[in-house]
């Protein structure tokens, strides 16, 4: 037995109150972890964006297309190693029309060279390239669509009306967290040849792989300069910049999540503070006894703060223990499968775990300081008189 273990034992003195407090704090921690994971998952696409890729789109808007011939020009720009293109297709599964997933018509010859983090067995790539109606889907999307390699899939076009038939030729996985594993890609030729003559040979955007990531800005400017005098001008930027500009649209939302996180921490502080203050009030007489035996005010502070630390630790462990199944296996899976474009990797970061644990303990200490200080300031006779 020592001063610290004595403090720890006091935590379980009023079990019902301690359990309720631990549960309350644990729920607050789950909410905190969830919100922080939204923020980190949101930024993961930026953090893990390839540094050696430059995207080029219409200067006016994403939704406006570029002439296909631009790809040849871009491939000729100095510093560009390879380039590919894609079009947003915007089809949906007629069996589940409310379920969104990204689907692109891509250049099957070059797309996987530029996006080499999409892992597909070479035999499947070859089968896909050989099949005009071939498609490759991410493993997460394959699960939610219930398709396997060799299956036939019909999608309903929204931008390009009609039923579109695809043969699933491969399932891709990813080597990088930022990759959305809920995408479907298919031959751009299949789309292009199905369009009326007047709409053919238009591409949504290009992505170029460059030799030197440090020259991304310079190469972007070089690409845009090339098309300055053309009818259709371009806007090029690194993949990281592109993701950043996309994320910037949601800055306010992320700020709101930060504010809610702070509110949750305040609730956590009040919960812990209330429990600790009640415990201290009930045990004032005991602190008087300890002081009578020769313990000093600093020992009383140690008892109270130590108890708060133990309470914070238990609540922190319980909260994090609850967070993992809720976030990683419940909501996280759901978001990855249904909102993979926004949350390709919705998992709890170790830094979030450490922060939640640290905050639970830190807030426990903060919440205990005032009651501890007050209890330590009482004279021995006043403390003894509380119940005696």
């Amino acid at each position, binding site marked *: 037995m020592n*001063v610290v273990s004595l403090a720890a034992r*006091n935590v379980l003195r009023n079990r019902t109150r301690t359990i309720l407090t631990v549960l309350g704090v644990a729920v607050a921690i789950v909410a905190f972890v969830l919100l922080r994971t939204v923020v980190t998952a949101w930024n993961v696409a930026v953090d893990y964006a390839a540094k050696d890729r430059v995207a080029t789109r219409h200067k006016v808007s994403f939704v406006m297309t570029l002439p296909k011939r631009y790809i040849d020009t871009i491939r000729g720009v100095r510093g560009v190693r390879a380039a590919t293109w894609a079009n947003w297709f915007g089809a949906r599964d007629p069996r589940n029309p409310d379920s969104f997933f990204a689907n692109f018509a891509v250049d099957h010859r070059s797309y996987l060279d530029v996006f080499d983090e999409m892992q597909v067995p070479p035999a499947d790539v070859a089968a896909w390239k050989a099949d005009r109606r071939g498609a490759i889907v991410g493993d997460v999307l394959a699960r939610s669509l219930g398709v396997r390699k060799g299956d036939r899939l019909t999608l309903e076009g929204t931008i390009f009306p009609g039923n579109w038939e695809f043969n699933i030729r491969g399932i891709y996985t990813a080597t990088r967290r930022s990759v959305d594993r809920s995408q479907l890609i298919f031959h751009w030729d299949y789309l292009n040849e199905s369009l009326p003559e007047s709409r053919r040979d238009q591409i949504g955007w290009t992505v170029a792989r460059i030799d030197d990531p440090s020259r991304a800005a310079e190469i972007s400017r070089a690409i845009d300069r090339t098309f300055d005098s053309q009818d259709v001008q371009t806007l090029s930027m690194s993949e990281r910049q592109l993701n950043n500009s996309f994320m910037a649209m949601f800055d306010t939302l992320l700020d709101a999540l930060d504010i809610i996180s702070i509110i949750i921490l305040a609730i956590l502080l009040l919960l812990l503070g209330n429990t600790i203050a009640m415990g201290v009030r009930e045990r004032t007489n*005991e602190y008087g*006894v*300890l002081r*009578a*035996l*020769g313990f000093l005010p600093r020992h009383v502070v140690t008892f109270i703060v130590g108890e708060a630390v133990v309470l914070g630790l238990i609540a922190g462990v319980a909260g994090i223990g609850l967070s993992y199944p809720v976030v990683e296996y419940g909501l996280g899976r759901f978001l990855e499968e249904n909102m993979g474009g926004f949350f390709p990797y919705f998992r709890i970061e170790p830094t979030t775990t450490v922060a939640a644990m640290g905050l639970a303990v830190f807030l426990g200490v903060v919440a205990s300081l005032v009651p501890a200080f007050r209890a330590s300031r009482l004279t021995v*006779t006043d403390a003894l008189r509380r119940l005696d």
Partner: protein
Amino acid sequence: MSAEPIVKLSAVNKTYFRGSESIPVLDGLDFEVPDGAFQALMGPSGSGKSTLLHLIAGLDRPTKGSVQVAGKELSKMSDAELAAFRANHIGFIFQSYNLLPVLTAQENVELPLLLTKLGRGERKTRAQTALRVVGLEERMGHYPRQLSGGQEQRVAIARAIVNDPQILVADEPTGDLDRKSADDVLELLGRLNTELKKTIVMVTHDPAAAERATVTRHLNKGALQ
């Protein structure tokens, strides 16, 4: 019994203040307890006996006057010095035992020894010895809720003697006990006085308890009678 007083209060005043109101409790009190005595303090509520006990025990300081206990002048000591004095020289016995419910009997007895430099093994041995003295060696692993009132008070007495203090101060030690348990506790206090030569100052309302003391002093309105 030595003739030299172990407790000597000279011209002691104690006044409490409640806002602007002053409440005098002791007024020019002179009081002595010879070394090895067993003194009972009696008096009506508000007569100042608990205040006197607190001054002797170093829990409080006088407003005026001198309090010498075990050769130390307590009125000039700082809070930390008083705490060290209490830890080394005083054993406390309270009316309602005041054991910590989360600790076993042995751990409760060990509590004052946490302030010493003794190792865990030595602390345990001393706590067991003190429990043996009060006849509760068999109950050392029991929590207070598993003990009777009389047994709890005997554990509290073991806690009071574990660091071998010179003086035991007891504030209504039998106030919460039935007659049989009260007699056992008083018997024990008598043995501690005669066999272990502990000086005991006991506040009590119980004449039967006071009879066990060698001397009974009566206090009324802050003055000895």
